[in-house]
């Protein structure tokens, strides 16, 4: 079979809009996520908060745990490969995962190049902190962008910074003249044709989700109101005191993000969220968001 068109890959990203993608470390957790209404799960051996705690090299998950999760749930199963590690991506494709996250949460394998994602039948999602990074990844074939935030921190501040930055850089493009776009493409380090597209539509050409620090229903609401089309929740669910209830609450909050009364009701029944870390307490060299080029 020939490679599905880029549109077919973006098509799955469209179907995930308004849904929550949850990090899970076992088939049991995947089941909890699915029962709570997750639109997809991300299979990984250690969620970002644990990767941060344990240190060492974080790699693609063991295929046997990915297969166990695929057997357990019917929703799409995503998995992460290291930045630039195209052999891990090839293995994930052979496993028929539904989406590959070329992720800064794992230790990068290439310090200059990301994967050429157009070569794969399976869609990719990549992190971005600004518009230039988002458009470089789309140029390489990413079918979905997620703002990076700071994974495993339980702190929303970086996710907000990145989403606001992407949105404001897109707005700027829409008011620029055509004669200004080439210089702006140079400044952003972004492919010119994609800069032109965003200048016309004011939107990324692929769905734009939020990730990295979402721990509460209010966090999900905040990111949706800032323009995210959906959210990834990593450590926020399974590092909390009540994963099933919190998973369900964040699913509801993503649908009813602009209904504060409903959000109050959803949030009221929850136990404690994950503890979280102040960004100032994470030394710059340990910030996952710095990875990616």
């Amino acid at each position, binding site marked *: 079979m020939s490679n*599905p068109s880029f*549109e*077919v890959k973006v098509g799955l990203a*469209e*179907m*995930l809009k*308004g849904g929550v993608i949850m990090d899970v470390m076992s088939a049991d957790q995947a089941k909890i996520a699915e029962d709570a209404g997750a639109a997809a799960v991300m299979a990984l051996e250690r969620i970002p908060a644990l990767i941060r705690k344990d240190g060492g090299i974080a790699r693609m998950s063991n295929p046997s745990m990915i297969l166990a999760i695929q057997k357990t749930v019917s929703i799409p199963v995503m998995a992460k490969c290291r930045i630039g590690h195209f052999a891990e991506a090839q293995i994930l494709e052979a496993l028929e995962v*539904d989406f590959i996250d070329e992720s800064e949460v794992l230790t990068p394998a290439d310090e200059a190049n990301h994967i050429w994602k157009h070569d794969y039948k399976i869609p990719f999602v990549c992190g971005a902190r600004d518009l230039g990074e988002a458009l470089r990844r789309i140029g390489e074939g990413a079918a979905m962008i997620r703002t990076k935030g700071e994974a495993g921190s339980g702190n929303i501040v970086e996710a907000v910074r990145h989403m606001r930055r992407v949105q404001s850089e897109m707005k700027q493009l829409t008011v620029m003249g055509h004669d200004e776009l080439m210089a702006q493409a140079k400044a952003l380090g972004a492919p010119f044709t994609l800069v032109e597209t965003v200048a016309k539509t004011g939107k990324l050409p692929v769905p734009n989700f939020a990730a990295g620090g979402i721990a509460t229903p209010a966090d999900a609401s905040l990111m949706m109101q800032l323009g995210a089309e959906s959210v990834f929740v990593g450590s926020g669910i399974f590092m909390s005191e009540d994963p099933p209830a919190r998973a369900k609450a964040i699913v509801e909050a993503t649908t009813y993000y602009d209904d504060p009364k409903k959000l109050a009701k959803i949030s009221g029944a929850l136990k404690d969220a994950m503890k979280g870390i102040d960004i100032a307490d994470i030394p710059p060299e340990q910030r996952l968001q710095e990875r990616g080029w």
Partner: protein
Amino acid sequence: MKIGVLALQGDFEKHSLLLEQLGITPVRIRYPHDLDTVEGLVFPGGESTTLMHLIEQNAFRTPLSEFAASHPVLGTCAGLILMATSVDDSRINPLGLLDIDARRNAYGRQVFSFTDQIQLTHFPDQRVSATFIRAPKITRIGTGIEILATWKNEPVGVMSGNHMALSFHPELDGYSGFHKYLFLS
């Protein structure tokens, strides 16, 4: 004319764009009372387990069934699953708006998603491009069900009365023929 698009999860925006192209005002349906203002409803694509979960959590089942009893309803992909009578998965308790059975993800995982030409039976266009994303298959067709579209001789679009279900996504391919036929003719 106002047509509702169930906006709990999924590609409801793509359906809204298509309706706008037809001069119809799309209305996002997120609460049962939103149905009071519209003359028809679209169940978009998305994850059927997520949609089912949100329908049950938010007391939507009875209002949706009651609305469908007297209004046109279109479902695509996950929407077809919700409209079926029986689904091969205990996680889904479909609404039974059409006398068909469905099998989820019947073509396989995302790696087997595709775009191809389908054959239409009731339309001036006889072949259109259709995108199937982790699509369901219609595994049983009850009496009184009309087949609107086929792919490799298998039914992929069906209709009965004013209820229509498609296993693919005309909203992704920008083809408004089905929406027009159901809501405007």
